[in-house]
C-alpha cells in the first residue's frame, strides 16, 4: 500500500512518442483507472510503472522510493496481464507459487509458508477447488483469477491490471467488475487498472485518468468527468451514450449572439451568452449530454433535424444516433419509435447545461474567473 507519484514521464519508441510528459499522483489505497483509446499510452504507462519499460525521462516514486531505475523485481509490484500470461507447463498451484519460489527470494519463504499463502490467495479468488488443475484446461474467467492471484500473492505495494476483463464474455465482464472492486477493497492495495471501456472505468475507478496521444486529458472522479469534462475529447468519450459535440460558429449581430450549426441558427440562452461574452474566436464546440437531447418538436427549446444513422435498444431505452449537420448526435428515448435508418428525425436541444470548448485548444470555457 503506497502512494504512486509520476513526474515528467517521457517514453519514445523509435519515432513514436508514446508518453509526452505525464504527471500524476495516485493516492495510497486508491483504485485508479487509466482510460483511453488504443495508442493513448495507457498500457505503456502501466508497463513503465511495472519496470517492463524504462522511461526516457522522469521519475516514478512508489511510497518513498524512486523506482524508475529499478528492475521489476525490486519494485514489488504485481501485474495481471491482458492475456493472462500464465505458465502453461504448471498447474494452478504452480502458477500461484511461482513468484514465491524465485531464487532471489529463496530465504523468505519456506515450503509450508508457500503452501499457506497459495491456499489463502486461492480462497480469496475462489479458485481453491482447482489448485491441481493444469492452467491450459481452465476457462477465461478462471485463468484471469489465477493471473490475479499470482499478482497478489506477494502482497505487492501496487497492483497493476492491464485490461483484465477485456477478453471475457460480456456477462462475465460485468460480474468480474464487481469482484475486482470488492477484492481491492478487501486487500487495500493501491491499484492501477488500464481499460479502453469508459463504463468499466466509471464503475470501478475512484479516480479516472483519461489519456490521449501520450498525454493526460483529465483526472477526476467519474462524476467530475461527466459533469465537468475538461476537454472536448473527454466530453465525447465518457458517458453512455457519450455527449454529442456540435461544431458551432459564433455570429454576433448588434448586441445579440447566435450559434450557427450548419444551416441552423440557435439561441444561446443566458448562461451560454455570459460564458461566450468576450470570447474572440469565432468557432467553439458545444457538448450536450444525451439527457438534454430529445426527439420531437418543442416549445422554446431549439429544434434541429437530421437523418437517423443508427438505432439500438439499450435496456428499455431506444438509443438513436442522428446526423445533424455533419455531427453525430446521440439521444435516448423511452418511446417505442419505429425507425428506419435514413428517416428524418426532429431533435430538440436543451442548451442550459451545455459545455463549451475552445475549438483550437479543446479546453472547456469556464464561467467567471476563479
Amino acid at each position, binding site marked *: 500500500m503506497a502512494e504512486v507519484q509520476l513526474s515528467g514521464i517521457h517514453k519514445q519508441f523509435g519515432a513514436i512518442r508514446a508518453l509526452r510528459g505525464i504527471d500524476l499522483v495516485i493516492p495510497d489505497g486508491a483504485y485508479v483507472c487509466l482510460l483511453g483509446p488504443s495508442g493513448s499510452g495507457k498500457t505503456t504507462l502501466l508497463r513503465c510503472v511495472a519496470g517492463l519499460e524504462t522511461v526516457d525521462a522522469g521519475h516514478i516514486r512508489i511510497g518513498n522510493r524512486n523506482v524508475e531505475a529499478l528492475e521489476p523485481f525490486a519494485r514489488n509490484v504485481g501485474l495481471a496481464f491482458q492475456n493472462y500470461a500464465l505458465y502453461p507447463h504448471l498447474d494452478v498451484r504452480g502458477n500461484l507459487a511461482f513468484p514465491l519460489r524465485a531464487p532471489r527470494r529463496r530465504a523468505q519463504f519456506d515450503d509450508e509458508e508457500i503452501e499457506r499463502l497459495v491456499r489463502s490467495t486461492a480462497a480469496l479468488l475462489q479458485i481453491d477447488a482447482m489448485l491441481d488443475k493444469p492452467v491450459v484446461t481452465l476457462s477465461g474467467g478462471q485463468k484471469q483469477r489465477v493471473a490475479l492471484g499470482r499478482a497478489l500473492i506477494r502482497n505487492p505495494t501496487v497492483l497493476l491490471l492491464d485490461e483484465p476483463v477485456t477478453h471475457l*464474455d460480456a456477462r462475465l465482464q460485468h460480474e468480474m467488475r464487481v469482484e475486482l472492486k470488492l477484492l481491492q477493497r478487501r486487500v487495500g492495495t493501491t491499484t492501477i487498472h488500464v481499460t479502453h471501456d469508459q463504463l468499466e472505468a*466509471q464503475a470501478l475507478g475512484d479516480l479516472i485518468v483519461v489519456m490521449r496521444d501520450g498525454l493526460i486529458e483529465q483526472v477526476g472522479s467519474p462524476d467530475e468527468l*461527466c459533469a465537468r469534462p475538461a476537454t472536448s475529447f473527454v466530453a465525447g468519450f465518457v458517458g453512455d451514450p457519450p455527449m454529442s459535440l456540435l461544431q458551432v460558429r459564433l455570429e454576433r449581430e448588434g448586441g445579440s449572439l447566435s450559434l450557427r450549426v450548419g444551416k441552423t441558427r440557435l439561441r444561446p440562452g443566458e448562461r451560454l451568452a455570459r460564458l461566450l461574452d468576450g470570447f474572440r474566436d469565432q468557432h467553439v464546440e458545444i457538448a450536450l449530454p444525451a439527457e438534454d437531447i430529445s426527439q420531437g418538436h418543442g416549445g422554446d427549446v431549439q429544434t434541429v433535424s437530421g437523418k437517423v444513422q443508427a438505432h*439500438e435498444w439499450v435496456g428499455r431505452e431506444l438509443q438513436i*444516433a442522428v446526423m445533424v449537420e455533419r455531427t453525430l448526435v446521440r439521444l435516448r428515448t423511452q418511446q417505442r419509435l419505429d425507425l*428506419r*435508418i435514413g428517416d428524418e428525425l426532429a431533435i430538440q436541444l436543451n442548451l442550459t447545461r451545455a459545455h463549451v470548448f475552445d475549438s483550437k485548444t479543446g479546453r472547456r470555457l469556464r464561467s467567471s474567473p476563479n
Partner: protein
Amino acid sequence: MPRIEFQGVTKIYPDGTRAVANLDLVVEDGELLCLLGPSGCGKSSTIRALAGLEVVSEGVILADNNRIDHLPPQARDCAMVFENYALYPHLTAFENIAMPLRARRLPVPEIKRRVMEIARMLHIEPLMGRRPRQLSGGEKQRVGIGRALVREPAMFLMDEPLGHLEAYLRIELRAEIRRLQERLGITTIYVTHDQEEAAAIADRIVVMSGGRLQQVGSFLDLLDRPVNRFVAEFVGEPPMVFLPVERTDTNSISVKGVPLQLSEPLAAALRATKDTNLTLGVRPNDISVVPPANEHLKGVVTLVQPQGSHAIVAVSTPGGPATVIVPSDWRPAAGANVGLAFAGERLHLFDSTARSLLHNREDSNG
C-alpha cells in the same frame, strides 16, 4: 430474399451430441434475426445447417417453401461471414472480395464495378490493394462482409463476426451491419452470445439453450415477457434478480417475511398453480432503493458503480444478492442500510420447473 423455415430440424453429431433438437422457426423475408445463446447452445450448428456446412439429421429446411436441406452449399445462395474472417492471406482485399465473382466467371469490368461498389458501402476503398496481414481486425471483417455481399446472395449468415474486435469497434461495426442490412433488405441471420449486440441490431431474437429454442420475439418481448428463467436471466444487463419466495397462501407470497404486492394478472396466475417452490424475478430497473422499513425487504449496500446517468448498486439481502439501478442524482453509500421496493406490475414468478407463471406461452414464433 426468401422466407426461411426450419421444421423439426435436429442435428446429432457422430459422437452422439445433440446440438440442435427439434427446431421449428420461421425467418421472415428481409428481417435481421439473431440467434442468441451461450456457447454450445446450438446456434452455430443451426446456421451452419442452413448454409449446408452441416447435414441435418432430421427435419427439413425450406426457403420460400422449397426444400433446401438436401442441396450442397453452393446451390443454396447463402453467404457466410465467420468470426475469424477466413480471408485468403495471399490475395489482396480486392481479390478477396472478387473471389466469388471470379468463380462465376463474370466479365472483368463487371467484377471491378461490383467490388468497388461494395467497398464504397463499407468504407474500405483505400484498402483494396492491401493484403490481410496489413489490415486491422475491423478492416479485415469489413472485407469479409464485402466478400459475402458482393454475390448479392439471397441469405446472409453471420457467425459471431465481431467477436475478435475491441468494444468500440464492435459498436461501430454493428451499426454499419444494421445499416447495410436495412439498405439491402437481405434476409439475415446473426449469431451471437452477447445479448447487448442482439438487442442493438435484431428485428427479432431467438434465444437458444441446450440445442432447444427457448423463446422468439423482439428484444422488448424477451425483456418484459420471458417465458422461463433462462431467457429472463440471459437477456438484459444487469441480469434479472432472483429471490426465493415463500407461499403464504393461495393468493399471496412473501420474500423473507416481507409480503409482495402482485398485479392482478400475476395474482391470477399464482392462484392457478399449486406449486409452492417459487422464485421471484425482478429487473434492476424495477427495484427502487428506499429508506429501510418493515414493509420493504431490507438489505445492505455492498458496492456502488457509477455509470454516468445512473448507477448500479449491489445490495446484500437476506434472500440473496440483488442489483438495483438508481438514477445518478441520488446514490446510497456503501455499507448503508436500505430497503428495496419492487414495482408490482413488473414482477415475474417462476415455478419449480423454471417456467414463468405469467408468460408461458408455448408457441415458438412470438
